[in-house]
């Protein structure tokens, strides 16, 4: 740890002067130093060990991609069917790339680069107060080193006509610790869909991407965030989605994780006013020695708020999948509906799945349910498929895929859904040739 602090101190000096000059940098830095890298002694991090990040070779101020690397990424993106209609922001190792991005005007939507907005920007996690509440060291670290990202603002009543896509490409030849940040602000009754897509260009060096998404939603606003994580299995990926919802606001978040060697996703939602609702779902597929952890924190701070959590995991080989769902119902927050399900499929005797619901309820008129299942493939279903001529291997793959498909079909953007389906289907042990009806 001491060595990490020294390393970060040295890295800090490498920040460009304009970025370094922000007054909140120091606070964020102090915050992170006070908390340190989470360890497994911390209950919230019990199953996930971040020790591999204490690595002096990680560069927290990664070099901007040169022309050759940008051409390499451009050629790679050409081969990827991930382009949706609407604006697209492409980041290479955290650096915004204007050429590969697409500006598409959406009336009432302002998209600006974080680097252009330093003066009006104070990242959450940088201040002591916000930090004490969240106690999320990685948010503080992100604030200490964030250089680029995007600020998306929707004016009152604006409904974005197309999804806003952020593509994060890991490409560099040096080990980078990329710290991007996306800020989303929806004014009253605004509505948008934001897609976050994480991919590796071929031959990318193993590194770490630590992304923070800050969401604030005004009354009656509606936001959908889809996150597809397709890193190579050498990469470390940590993400935090922190959202605050006002009266009658809706947040939908859909997470698909099939990549990364060490992955930790935090979703931290505050339902601050009556009528707010969060619908959070995800599917992860972990094989080999992959470790993927989804940890959720939902704070029912007001009456008549709703949270739905539905997460699925498939673990094969020696992989480790984790789901932690914490729901807090504050005193006086009556008529709460909180439902949590965690369904898990174990494909190997050496794989591990940990699933942990945690309810803290300080009100009496609440409806809180949680259910967790961990199982293997169903014998009856296997026999049924085989009795129709499907081979045992194909039946196994098909049932595994079907388990994932139940979550994947909830992705409302067809192009994105197809991509996620192909990504999951293509990584099953025997492969499933899936075509949508």
């Amino acid at each position, binding site marked *: 740890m001491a060595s990490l602090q020294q390393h970060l101190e040295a890295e800090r000096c490498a920040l460009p002067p304009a970025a370094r000059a922000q007054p909140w940098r120091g606070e964020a830095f102090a915050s992170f130093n006070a908390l340190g890298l989470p360890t497994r002694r911390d209950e919230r991090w019990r199953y996930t060990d971040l020790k591999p990040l204490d690595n002096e070779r990680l560069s927290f101020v990664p070099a901007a991609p040169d022309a050759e690397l940008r051409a390499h990424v451009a050629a790679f993106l050409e081969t990827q069917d991930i382009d949706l209609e609407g604006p697209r922001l492409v980041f290479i190792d955290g650096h915004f790339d204007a050429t590969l991005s697409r500006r598409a005007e959406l009336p009432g939507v302002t998209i600006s680069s974080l680097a252009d907005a330093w003066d009006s920007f104070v990242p959450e996690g940088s201040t002591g107060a916000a930090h004490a509440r969240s106690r999320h060291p990685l948010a503080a670290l992100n604030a200490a080193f964030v250089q680029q990202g995007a600020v998306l603002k929707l004016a009152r009543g604006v409904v974005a006509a197309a999804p806003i896509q952020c593509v994060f490409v890991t490409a560099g030849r040096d080990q980078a610790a990329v710290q991007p940040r996306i800020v989303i602000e929806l004014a009253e009754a605004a509505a948008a869909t934001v897609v976050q897509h994480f991919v590796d260009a071929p031959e990318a060096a193993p590194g770490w991407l630590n992304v923070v998404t800050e969401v604030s939603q005004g009354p009656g606003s509606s936001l959908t965030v889809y996150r597809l994580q397709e890193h190579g299995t050498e990469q470390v990926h940590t993400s935090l989605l922190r959202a605050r919802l006002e009266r009658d606001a809706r947040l939908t978040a859909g997470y698909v994780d099939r990549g990364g060697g060490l992955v930790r996703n935090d979703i931290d939602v505050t339902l601050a006013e009556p009528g707010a609702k969060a619908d959070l779902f995800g599917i992860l597929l972990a094989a080999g020695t992959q470790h993927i952890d989804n940890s959720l924190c939902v704070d029912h701070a007001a009456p008549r708020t709703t949270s739905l959590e539905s997460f699925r995991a498939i673990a094969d080989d020696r992989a480790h999948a984790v789901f932690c769902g914490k729901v807090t119902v504050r005193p006086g927050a009556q008529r709460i509906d909180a439902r949590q399900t965690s369904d898990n499929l174990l494909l190997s005797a050496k794989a591990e799945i940990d699933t942990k619901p945690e309810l803290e309820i300080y009100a009496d008129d609440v409806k809180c349910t949680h259910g967790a299942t961990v199982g293997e493939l169903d014998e009856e279903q296997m026999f049924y498929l085989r*009795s129709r001529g499907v081979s045992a291997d194909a039946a196994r793959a098909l049932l595994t895929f*079907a388990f994932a498909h139940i979550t994947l079909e909830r992705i409302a953007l067809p192009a994105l859904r197809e991509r996620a389906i192909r990504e999951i289907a293509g990584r099953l042990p025997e492969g499933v040739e899936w075509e949508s009806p």
Partner: protein
Amino acid sequence: MLKIDNLHVRVADRVILNGLTLEVGAGEVHAIMGPNGSGKSTLAQVLAGRESFEITAGSIEYLGRNLLELAPEERARAGVFLAFQYPIEIPGVNNAYLLKAAVNARRRAEGKPQIDAFEFMRLIKGKMELMQISKEFLNRSINVGFSGGEKKRNEILQMLMLEPRLAVLDETDSGLDVDALKIVAAGVNSLRGADRSMLLITHYQRLLELIVPDRVHVLAGGKIAMSGGSELARELDERGYDWIETAAASA
């Protein structure tokens, strides 16, 4: 077509079939009747290749091959079809996918070309009309949210698509109202032919009024206790099974 000889089957320590012998010729429809717990469904599952049963003695020959050596999927590809008594629900896999995979697995085994989406739709359209199944059904998860009758009609639709050489229908009539029973019977009858054999497993005679069998067998005590023509079914309906069990016990 099918020759079962002296079949002994047990599950755990319980003997379920105890020397069952039965021969079904090409083009014939046989009914297997019998009281609950007589082993009718076990016979159906053993024919389809269910692995949880232990075969302790006897043999099953199908089209000159040793059926017991074949995995369930190999049997299906060789033309054996089981219509399940309780069709299994598979959330997340749609009917069209399974139907196409099943048809193509069979075709591959027979060295025939795979069917494409267009050919598939052409093939299934009339069969769905016959079974009174609507088009939307193809995109729904297998058997999920289906009524009992819909599940049974779905089994018959699969059978019509696969055109098996040997069809085993395990209590396909149970839980069906009169209208659904007629639809199912029409589907089954449309498949009757000189090179196709059927085994109808049923508890009641009413299905056999609509699908008239060539032979009726009564399964009791783990073996065939009595055989006869289609009139035997009517007699069983009137007299019940007790007299056969008594006769079998004293024989």
